[in-house]
């Protein structure tokens, strides 16, 4: 029986690797997801059987009932939530599911501390358990706060007190366990774990609090990674290899995405976490007055109808306006007339990695039409019209040619190299970085003011007439 279970765990770990590997192509990704899910079910079922078989005394009926009820409830609620969530709110959903994993890791640590005799358990196991518990708690409260911030319920807080308290708590999360396990034990293990859990929970909140909206892709990736690490440590403490493997894989995935996201913004992880921007040089060339040309719906529709090649650059504004479907409709009309339409997507557009791609996929956009930033930049001069919908900082040429700009060095989509750029905006307000966009004053750029969804609808109506 032992062998069966261990082999099963091995198969589960392999299925996770395959599942992630298959994510490299949209065609196979569905199969990958199914394989990983089957591996997961296998691992859980085997654990369940093992718990029943190895139970040397009589089977604990109460525990079994609690276990089964909790599993059924979790499955039902999980299915419900995933069926109902609109694609625009995917970042919130992922944050919630991430919180559940972290919460589970935290509770495991607490229970283990409650039922373990500190004299019998080794310091090694206990410290692993402590790390797993604390990282789980940070991921839990951090993800919940991230969800609140993404839904706009909690505003950023960048006061010095917040950042300083967070640092203090982080230090105590390292120092306290070291002291405790090297012999300084004023309270018993249970109390100690509860105190540590409380500190970690507060730290999770303070750690996400200063982080601004457009930096959310970084923090969501990071929290995902932390949950993975928590799982791996719990696996270490229990001595379960499939938990270690799963946890580490997730940790690596989250870490890679975190690095990709910070690179795409040309910011250091530390700056993101502190909610800091490079100070712009006061009175620099960035503050020059711009001459803005606005453009009407009719003119936009006309420009589009004459274009051979059109590109759409979507940003978070597209998600806010829920304009993905009408945008896809515009694309279909243009394609019927023989115009080629591409979407060029910046890696940090939206509130989580890949957010825009999911929205456009939902609107039935062919994924062959979705171009990455580099790909789009190479052929930018071929586009007759580029429509920028709800994006700002990621198309600001200042990132390339104004060393004084706070966003200097950030890779951008070079829409200014296209023949004509039409920017859809609600108002002249600045983007997330709070800097003026040099693109708007350029010769080939005009601005179509209004709500993205309403304006796109009008463009579609006009296009049907032309």
């Amino acid at each position, binding site marked *: 029986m032992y062998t069966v279970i261990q082999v099963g765990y091995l198969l589960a770990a392999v299925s996770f690797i395959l599942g992630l590997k298959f994510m490299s192509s949209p065609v196979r990704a569905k199969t990958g997801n199914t394989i990983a899910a089957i591996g997961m079910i296998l691992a859980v079922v085997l654990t369940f059987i093992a718990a029943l078989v190895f139970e040397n005394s009589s089977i604990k009926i109460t525990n079994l009932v609690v276990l089964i009820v909790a599993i059924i409830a979790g499955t039902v609620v999980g299915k419900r939530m995933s069926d109902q969530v609109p694609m625009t709110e995917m970042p919130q959903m992922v944050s919630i599911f991430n919180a*559940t994993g972290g919460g589970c890791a935290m509770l495991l640590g607490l229970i283990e501390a409650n039922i373990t005799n500190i004299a019998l358990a080794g310091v090694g196991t206990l410290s692993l358990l402590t790390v797993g518990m604390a990282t789980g708690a940070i991921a839990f409260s951090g993800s919940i706060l991230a969800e609140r911030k993404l839904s706009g319920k909690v505003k950023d807080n960048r006061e010095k007190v917040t950042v300083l308290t967070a640092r203090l708590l982080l230090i105590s999360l390292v120092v306290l366990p070291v002291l405790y396990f090297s012999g300084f034990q004023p309270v018993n293990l249970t109390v100690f774990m509860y105190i540590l859990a409380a500190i970690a929970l507060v730290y999770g909140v303070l750690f996400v609090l200063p982080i601004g909206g457009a930096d959310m892709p970084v923090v969501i990736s990071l929290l995902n990674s932390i949950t993975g690490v928590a799982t791996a440590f719990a696996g270490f403490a229990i001595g*379960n290899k499939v938990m*270690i493997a799963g946890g580490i894989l997730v940790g690596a995935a989250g870490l890679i995405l975190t690095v990709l996201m910070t690179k795409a913004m040309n910011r250091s992880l530390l700056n993101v976490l502190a909610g800091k921007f490079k100070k712009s040089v006061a009175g620099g060339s960035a503050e020059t007055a711009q001459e803005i040309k606005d453009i009407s719906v009719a003119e936009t529709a006309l420009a589009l109808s004459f274009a051979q090649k059109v590109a759409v650059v979507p940003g978070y504004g597209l998600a806010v306006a829920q304009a993905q479907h009408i945008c896809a409709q515009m694309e279909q009309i243009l394609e019927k007339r023989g115009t080629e339409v591409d979407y060029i997507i910046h890696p940090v557009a939206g509130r989580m990695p890949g957010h825009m791609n999911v929205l456009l996929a939902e609107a039935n956009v062919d994924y062959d039409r979705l171009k990455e930033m580099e790909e789009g930049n190479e052929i930018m001069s071929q586009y007759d019209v580029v429509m920028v919908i709800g994006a700002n900082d990621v198309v600001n040429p200042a990132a390339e040619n104004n060393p004084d700009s706070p966003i200097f060095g950030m890779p951008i989509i070079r829409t200014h190299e296209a023949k004509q750029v039409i920017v859809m905006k609600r108002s002249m307000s600045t983007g997330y970085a709070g800097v003026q966009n040099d693109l708007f004053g350029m010769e080939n750029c005009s601005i179509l003011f209004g709500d993205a969804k309403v304006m796109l609808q009008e463009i579609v109506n006009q296009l049907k007439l032309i």
Partner: protein
Amino acid sequence: METINLYTAIYMSEIYFVIFCIFIGIEVISNVPAILHTPLMSGANAISGIILVGAVIMIMKVDADDYLNLILGGIAVFLGTLNIAGGFFVTGRMLKMFNTKK
């Protein structure tokens, strides 16, 4: 020194294991294109639900009349299952939408 040697003996194979896992993870995930980053994240998220295995082991270890830990364990199992079920279902739902005419 003796304790250190002891821990080395216990954990060395695990440390090898972890390092190899890190490399496999990085290698596999680096090949995921940007268009699939959201499903990658929610799929990875679902995989971190493997913590449920720990929760199942733990809840069966607790005494049947230890209600505090039974409740905590029940919540842990619920959260772990929610992570797995929600994660895989929502990833599947997203991936179904990625289509091409070619």
